[in-house]
């Protein structure tokens, strides 16, 4: 982990875009976000940001890169519980739940902005509507967890992968990081398996079959959706649970 240059306007803009995709913001609230003091650090791929059991006194805003929340089980098995894009605060809950009940790590080289809890509390006191928006954001996190629970418990392996690739398309789109149905999602097949409860062998077979069916091409360089409606149909993907208010469609 190393200290790095302060966040650029476009990096801070990801958070504003993210919050504006789920609600309204005033000019003063946006200005407060652009002025938030944060300590920026660059982490390599696969580094832990905060570990289960720790009591952080700051929240982590993703400026660039990709982050996941995970839990480790005996014998090294891992369950990834969510992926996080630039503009997300993957550990916002630490503001109110003092001890981390899971760990947070990078899945690519990432620039992260650490904002003190004391500043976040002051921000929410000054701008209660911004507080409500952050609350809404954590409720949407919970909606995403519910959807993942349905997927892991009840959807086929093909559907889980299709659903995930649709979800990430809309989430990257919300922060302006998709282009012509393409987005960067530099996870390994093992990481995808750890998120979806699948083996790397099954993930490999299914990605090949989705490519053969001309639905999507997904590899470590990125995701290219060839047939959005087809992929949505296969994954039974209904974006309602993301509660995006701006009618996003990649």
């Amino acid at each position: 982990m190393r200290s790095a240059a302060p966040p650029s306007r476009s990096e801070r803009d990801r958070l504003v875009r993210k919050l504006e995709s789920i609600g309204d913001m005033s000019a003063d609230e946006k200005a407060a976000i652009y002025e938030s003091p944060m300590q920026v650090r660059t982490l390599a791929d696969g580094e832990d940001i905060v570990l289960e059991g720790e009591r952080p006194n700051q929240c982590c805003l993703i400026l660039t890169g990709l982050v996941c929340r995970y839990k480790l089980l005996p014998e090294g098995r891992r369950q990834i519980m969510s992926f996080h894009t630039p503009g997300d605060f993957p550990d916002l809950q630490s503001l109110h739940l003092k001890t981390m009940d899971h760990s947070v790590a990078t899945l690519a080289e990432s620039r992260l902005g650490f904002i003190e809890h004391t500043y976040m509390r002051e921000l929410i006191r000054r701008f209660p509507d911004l507080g409500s928006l952050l609350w809404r954001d954590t409720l949407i996190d919970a909606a995403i967890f519910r959807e993942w629970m349905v997927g892991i418990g009840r959807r086929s392996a093909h559907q889980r992968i299709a659903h995930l690739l649709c979800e990430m398309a809309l989430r990257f789109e919300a922060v302006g990081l998709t282009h012509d149905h393409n987005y960067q999602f530099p996870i390994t097949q093992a990481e995808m398996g750890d998120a979806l409860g699948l083996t790397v062998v099954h993930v490999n077979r299914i990605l090949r079959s989705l490519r053969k069916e001309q639905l999507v091409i997904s590899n470590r360089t990125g995701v290219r959706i060839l047939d959005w409606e087809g992929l949505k149909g296969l994954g039974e993907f209904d974006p309602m649970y993301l509660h995006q208010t701006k009618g996003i469609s990649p």
Partner: protein
Amino acid sequence: MSFTQQFVRVNTGGPDEEGCLLFDNDDTLVAVLVRLSDQHDPEYAGKWFFEHGFGIRNYHGHPLFKDINEAENWMASRKVK
């Protein structure tokens, strides 16, 4: 415990076609193994992937074996009679 092997073709939706069924002493199916093709990374290709097992305890997931003999030894240690 000894096993009987029956080699079969398996439709996994791709080139992983070479399969082996394992039957126990009572001629009851206890495992379906598939040999991974070279569409997989070199650390996986050529190994036997445990697709499904029946009547087995204390395992999670889908282990990989370098050959069928190794799979049989693993099965013998976990088979529920």
